[in-house]
């Protein structure tokens, strides 16, 4: 992708600087501090970089329109560098150092797993978009909310598409050896079996392995009718797609959203190899019938364009998710103020928050706010402005 880590850092830095300049004008009222723990650098930072664009836009808009009761929203950013130890240090600084009112992030599961229990200890309201199922637990972490799908929802959508729409019964499930990959593999294989599918091949493979031909050949000889890869590593995913193409093996590939990312595309040997690749995505940011986005999303795209935010090298859902999160926190704060208990009470009753990324609802017993039916599959090679066409069979 064209955006390098350095550029991402610069843009984040510029945003921080802009907030700093804007502050004196409203100095009569203290700003409300919101913590933010993205991975802007490091090996799994492309998600964080995409999300960051939406966040910065939302904060700018909120503050331009008067902030929260005249108080500015100040974002305190700590780059986690995709490193759990840095995330823990960052969480400590946000909660025990600057004492923020709420935290958004981290955006990678490995970091969230460490940070969520820590924030629970300091009673800090938290919103994060990580998928690992155990990351919300209303008993252990009563102040932690997820405004994104769970792994169950993601895998469920993929599995349903393969088994029920494509009617494939023999499936090969494959992942890299990173945490996210192995966790997904372990969760989805039993789900597939429960749906009556036959998992003819499953493996976790070192993403650095340069040659995946043996793996793909073994899937082929096991009689697989679909490949389901789980990894956020574009290099690894592109090798799977390329090898399938080289072997001229005509099976669908369904799985992780990164299958549709610009980086994966850049690593394909031929553009046509991207056909019959169906990544996960989210209905509100997909082109429906006639190639149209929902109205809410069209309006959002216009705002992005007017702020000259680049979408060619990232995914729309990352930006949308980033944009929704501060808006959701701001809406709660406008209603009840920044007190943690009141914020959580408000969030516990949040109903259909109209996000670009999706409608979010929480209850006291359920902090997973994303709707099942909004998780969909799309056609990878329809990528345009960071969004995709729904995969065939959604009848939209």
């Amino acid at each position, binding site marked *: *992708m064209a955006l390098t880590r350095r550029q991402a850092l610069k843009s984040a830095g510029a945003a921080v600087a802009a907030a700093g300049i804007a502050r004196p004008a409203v100095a009569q009222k203290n700003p409300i501090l919101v913590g933010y723990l993205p991975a802007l650098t490091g090996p799994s930072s*492309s998600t964080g970089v995409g999300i960051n664009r939406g966040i910065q836009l939302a904060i700018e808009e909120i503050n331009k329109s008067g902030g929260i009761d005249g108080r500015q929203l100040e974002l305190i950013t700590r780059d986690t560098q995709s490193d759990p130890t840095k995330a823990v240090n960052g969480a400590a600084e946000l909660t025990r150092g600057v004492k923020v009112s709420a935290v958004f992030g981290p955006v990678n599961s490995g970091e969230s797993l460490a940070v969520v229990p820590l924030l629970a200890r300091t009673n800090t309201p938290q919103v994060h978009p990580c998928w690992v199922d155990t990351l919300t637990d209303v008993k252990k972490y009563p102040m932690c909310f997820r405004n994104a799908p769970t792994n169950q929802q993601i895998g469920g959508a993929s599995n349903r598409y393969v088994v029920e729409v494509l009617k494939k019964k023999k499936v090969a499930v494959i992942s890299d*050896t990173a945490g996210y990959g192995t966790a997904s593999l372990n969760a989805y294989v039993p789900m597939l079996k429960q749906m009556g599918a036959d998992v003819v091949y499953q493996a976790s*493979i*070192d993403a650095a*392995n*340069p*040659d995946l031909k043996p793996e793909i050949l073994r899937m082929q000889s096991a009689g697989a009718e679909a490949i389901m890869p789980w990894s956020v590593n*574009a290099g690894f995913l592109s090798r799977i797609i390329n090898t399938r193409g080289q072997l001229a093996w005509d099976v669908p590939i369904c799985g992780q959203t990164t299958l549709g990312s610009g980086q994966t595309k850049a*690593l394909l040997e031929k553009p046509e190899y991207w056909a019959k690749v169906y990544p996960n995505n989210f209905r509100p940011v997909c082109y429906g019938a006639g190639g149209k986005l929902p109205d809410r999303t069209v309006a959002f795209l216009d705002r992005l364009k007017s702020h000259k935010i680049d979408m060619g090298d990232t995914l729309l859902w990352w930006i949308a998710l980033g944009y929704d999160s501060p808006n959701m926190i701001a809406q709660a704060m406008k209603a009840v103020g920044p007190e943690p208990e009141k914020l959580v009470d408000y969030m516990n009753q949040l109903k259909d928050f109209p996000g670009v990324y999706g409608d979010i609802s929480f209850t006291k017993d359920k902090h997973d706010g994303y709707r099942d039916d909004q998780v969909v599959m799309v056609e990878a090679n329809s990528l345009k402005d960071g969004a995709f066409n729904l995969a065939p069979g959604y009848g939209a």
Partner: protein
Amino acid sequence: MLLSIVLSGVAIGCVYALIGIAYNVMFSASRVFSFTAGTLGMAGGILGALFILKLGLPVWAGFLLALAGGAILGVVTEILAVRPVLKSLDQHLYVLSTLALALIVQQFAAIEWGTDAQPFPRLLNIERNSFDQQFWLPMVACAVTIVGLEVLYRRTLLGHAFRAIAEDNYAARALGLPERNLRMASYAIAGVIGALSGFAGGQMLLAFFDNATLLTFYGFVPVALGGMGNNRGAVVAGLVLGLFQQAANFLVGGVFSSVAVFAAFILVLLARPEGLAGVALGRRV
């Protein structure tokens, strides 16, 4: 299927062997193993992608510039990380200085080039078949390097000087050989060979900053098993490693294949510290 394993095993084995040779060339000139060997391979891949894909230079120009980049990196290694610590070789400071330089270069690449793997160009616009660029290029590169080094070492005056340095540093200096310049030249050659390996393996390994770590380790295996300074041993051991790795990938798969490779390496070394083809060295008192 078997053909596929053998082909890719041999191809990746050639890349490892070339890194091993880069280690050896540096070692022969200075009695120093340098952690920058894998970094040279990483640089070859990234520079190739940078010049050909990003800057749009012709393939030959990108190739030559990538090798030149490797040579510069080799010379910088010699000046910054090797020459200053040669006086105190027995303190093993070279391990630290070359590790530091390798980290500096790798981190610089991570920040400037990015931490995502990026595509490496196809050199010839021909249809893929089972004997693709990713297979033949490393093999050709390895063969050319071996032949080239043989000719250089056996047939040229410069090569004789290199060998004199490798065999007896002090005697060579006493003979009036320009030891320092020869050492720098050796490091430049090692840089070219390292960059060549990364360039040749670019289609397989992509242009990726973390290849430095991978190649530093896997490239050292041929040196350790083939015997220090023994280029032919390195090639044989490199090919064995490549085939063993692909076979392990195929047979046990997943995470256990890398565990198998590392464990086999450590066990073989413990059994024969001087390598499978090496000779035990006497100690200096």
